[in-house]
């Protein structure tokens, strides 16, 4: 079995772009950008302004995408730069890619106009067809398709070994890392780009997460302090995170610096009931080989019940260890939670600010994960 190391990171969120901005943000106590107006009554953590040309040189490529895909392609480019691979066409052509994500933005104006017209339409079926045919931009579908984030990374950055897209909210990000780590450790593949992208600044996802009452419709408050009636819920953040993972041998052979080591990732799916989150977390923690790490990065969402349970469990598993909630740094980014956590952990380790970091990903609805990052 090979050791799996992180050799590159690409990060964009409300904290800005790059590792330095995000490591600074880890101790800030609150996300750098919070917007309570644009999507009122919901609070979001909008992404910092980006100069897209820096990673997506062709305007025609930029135009083919909406924010969700653009963020992901941008962060993927940062990761390749960080790993010193951006100019290595041959290696990129053989690199494997796994993306964890959902889907792309609706054209909310078209949707609204159609819903308005449907109210009085004599033949709703025919009306719907006519409006969709005439009002949808034909290439919008490609900006919405889940696997086209990977497709755009392939086109823009030349990463064409092969790609897979994992869907399924928080667990998708954890399992993208899990399977990538396992494939490299077992020698099935040498070098992978793994990560995800989420755009929060879109009214369509707010409808989905308001159903079930998962969204916090109040100003920011730290994730582990959202107790009491009406305080619970997550605040969505826009962001993207990608890591370059390699076998230690592959990294050494090309003279790449190993930032940190990614240990086998643990994940499971428990039946949600009181106590299950704590028990699940503890079992995964042990399976990960964790004792007491130097830092904990938590993907806790702020959802009632599971957040408090995780907080208590972490206090037992890692007494006195600083716990930082990603929701207090980037906001909740669903599929990108695990990649952000692992990337920040790798950054802390690379800067010798920690020797071992635990990352937790307890999904808002289902799925639990524990990731362990150590010094390389």
């Amino acid at each position, binding site marked *: 079995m090979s050791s799996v190391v992180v050799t590159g990171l690409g990060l964009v969120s409300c904290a800005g772009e790059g590792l330095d901005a995000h490591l600074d943000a880890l101790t800030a106590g609150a996300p750098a950008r919070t917007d309570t107006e644009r999507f009122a009554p*919901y609070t979001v953590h909008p992404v910092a302004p980006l100069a897209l040309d820096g990673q997506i040189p062709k305007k025609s490529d930029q135009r083919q995408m909406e924010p969700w895909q653009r963020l992901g392609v941008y962060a993927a480019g940062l990761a390749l730069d960080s790993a010193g691979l951006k100019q290595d066409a041959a290696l990129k052509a053989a690199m494997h*890619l796994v993306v964890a994500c*959902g*889907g792309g933005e*609706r054209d*909310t104006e078209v*949707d*609204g106009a159609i819903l308005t017209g449907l*109210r009085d339409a004599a033949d709703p079926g*025919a009306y*719907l*067809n*006519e409006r*969709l*045919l005439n009002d*949808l931009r034909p290439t919008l*579908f*490609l900006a919405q*398709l*889940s*696997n*086209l984030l*990977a*497709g*755009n990374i*392939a*086109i823009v950055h*030349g*990463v*064409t*070994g*092969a*790609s*897979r*897209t*994992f*869907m*399924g909210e928080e*667990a*998708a990000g*954890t*399992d993208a890392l*899990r*399977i990538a780590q396992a494939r490299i450790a*077992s020698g*099935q593949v040498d070098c992978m780009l793994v990560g995800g992208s989420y755009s929060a600044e879109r*009214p*369509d996802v*707010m*409808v*989905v997460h*308001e*159903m*079930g*009452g*998962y969204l916090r419709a109040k100003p920011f408050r730290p994730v582990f302090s959202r107790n009491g009636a009406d305080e619970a819920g997550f605040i969505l953040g826009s962001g993207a995170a990608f890591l370059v993972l390699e076998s230690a041998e592959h990294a050494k052979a090309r003279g790449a610096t190993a930032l940190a080591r990614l240990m086998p990732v643990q994940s*499971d*799916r428990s039946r949600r009931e009181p106590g299950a989150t704590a028990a699940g977390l503890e079992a995964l923690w042990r399976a990960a080989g964790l004792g007491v790490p130097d830092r904990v990065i938590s993907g806790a969402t702020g959802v009632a019940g599971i957040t408090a349970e995780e907080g208590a469990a972490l206090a037992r598993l890692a007494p006195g260890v600083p716990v930082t909630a990603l929701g207090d740094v980037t906001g909740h980014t669903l599929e990108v939670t695990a990649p952000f956590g692992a990337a920040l952990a790798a950054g802390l380790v690379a800067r010798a600010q920690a020797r071992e970091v635990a990352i937790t990903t307890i999904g808002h*609805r289902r*799925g639990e994960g524990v990731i362990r990052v150590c010094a390389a």
Partner: protein
Amino acid sequence: MTNTSSRDAKNRPLVAVTGLGIVTSLGQGQADNWAALTAGRSGIHAIRRFSTEGLRTRIAGTVDFLDTDPLVAPLLSQRFAEAAAEEAIAQAGIGGLGRFPGALFIAVPPVEMEWPQRRAMAEASGQNGAVTYTDLQRAAASRRFDAWHDLFIFGTVADHIADRFGTQGSPISLSTACSSGATAIQLGVEAIRRGEVEAALCIGTDGSVNPESLIRFSLLSALSTQNDPPEAASKPFSKNRDGFVMGEGAGALVLENAETAHARGAKILGYVLGCGEKGDGFHRTRSSPDGAPGIAAIHAALDDAGVTPDAIDTINAHGTSTPENDKMEAMGCAAVFGERIGRLPISSNKSMIGHTLTAAGAIEAVVSLLTIAHGRIPPTINYAVPDPAIPLDVVAAARDARVSRVLSNSFGFGGQNTCLVLGDEPA
């Protein structure tokens, strides 16, 4: 199948197939599907599920005999997946009721709210003027639609399948567009080869024929508009092909470590000998003009299986009936198989069941294994006017043949190409 070896040519655990399940517009289950496929029957028909008024494409291979309420893609996809998985697990006789001793890899179509639900929420909002998403958010905040949260997030289908069949660990929901079903199988193969699991339930499912999906493909000029007669529209490799026909269904395979399968006395239906994949960064919907990625994917599958091109007895084509795919696929196969290509039988199931999208790779893997088992290659129907530029031995009528090894191709939108080599015996 008397071979009891448990490692392959590269000393990895051999991956055996012990269960198959299938649902398509032709019917539910192996028996009905095989009978229809070998008889050259088409499942394509005029769409009855919703109004096709004003649409240039009015046909599809919808699965009309299984229903859900509400009739939305995630529920329908889940229903098909359940039916296929149930058949596969029953055949495999593996584990116990609700206890599948392995992982779940399921290719599912991307999920989003659909128009009936949007309309219901708009109505519930009480908005009498211009409707916006603020109104839908307000309707959501009424708490009346909380049950729909699960319906419209991505992980729910897998969650229900995992619950129903008792698969282990965190289930994987995946997509690689038209390659998805094949990728689900590949993920299962890799997990067994790593020794992580001894069994995998690999499913590809798709129940997303709805107005917006149809229109999206239509706007990309990807669909056939030869609506009349519907059964004649899907004509892979023909000179007058004009696009694919959307289809629905699910394919499920129980994969097992061959050693474990032998040990428990399971009947081995065949093996997944090799999987190969290659990305294409040329364009979002079109392939590299030199066909290199498709060729690379085929070679990768053959290499992974440890076989040469000569070992392949027949090709289960991606064969979508689009002008572009069929030409590129023919070019790729000709490059790999050389002058033998004119004598190597190739056939496209999509001629009868349409393009089942996320399910295609899995459904067609099931059909490939049935082809091996029965020694009969299902036809490519509607092959009345061959394309002279395509030098393939297209199986126009069901053909009896000794089939030991099948190459199954899947070439997806967004450039993901995945090929499988399926066989009756280890290489």
